[in-house]
């Protein structure tokens, strides 16, 4: 079972900057990359539009979702996971996050911006009501 997801520092900055810019609304996106044995290695962060434009909900733009998936396929990558921000709440899946997590294979990353200056990014696997935290490994380098 895969429990490690690797992102570069640049990927983390992309997620953080995007989420901060979209605040107070929730921001969201997808992660594409490869799987090496039991490690997910992110190759690209896709910044998607939250069509809800809301501080408490997000829905990814389906058109952008399809475009991202096709780009991943073109590059020989897989959908490894997705991310969204919690501008005013902790980095843990809400009941709604769990209810709407249909894919047990992907990682669900949540960036909490609740404490100013202390963003917290965590990754989870969600299988029905069972939530398990994954290890995020941040490596030096660009996207």
């Amino acid at each position, binding site marked *: 079972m895969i429990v490690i997801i690797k992102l570069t520092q640049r990927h983390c900055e992309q997620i953080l900057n995007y989420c901060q810019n979209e605040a107070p609304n*929730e921001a969201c996106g*997808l992660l594409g990359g490869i799987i090496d044995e039991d490690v997910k290695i992110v190759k690209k962060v896709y910044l998607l539009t939250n069509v809800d434009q809301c501080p*408490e909900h*997000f829905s*990814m733009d*389906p058109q952008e979702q399809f475009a991202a*998936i096709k780009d991943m396929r073109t590059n020989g990558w897989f959908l490894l996971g*997705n991310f969204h921000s919690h501008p005013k709440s902790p980095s843990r899946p809400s009941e*709604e996050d769990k209810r709407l997590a249909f894919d047990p294979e992907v990682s669900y990353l949540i960036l909490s911006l609740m404490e100013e200056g202390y963003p917290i990014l965590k990754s989870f696997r969600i299988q029905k009501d069972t939530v398990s935290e994954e290890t995020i490994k941040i490596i030096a380098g660009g996207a």
Partner: protein
Amino acid sequence: MQIKVNGKDLVLEKELSVKELIDEQRIEAPEYVTVQLNEEFVDKNDFSSIIIKDGDSIEFLYFMGGGRI
């Protein structure tokens, strides 16, 4: 007939509607699935009436969303 489902080849013995293909693929929670057929979005109301033809390319994608509640 041969079609592509999420980029992968699939052989069908007969023509199916989008809804029948969703059922055959055993896609869970189909009410949360968005469908593109040959790059065009398919309205959920048309899932039963649109027939997939030889050479078509169909994409299924789960709605991705959530909230803090």
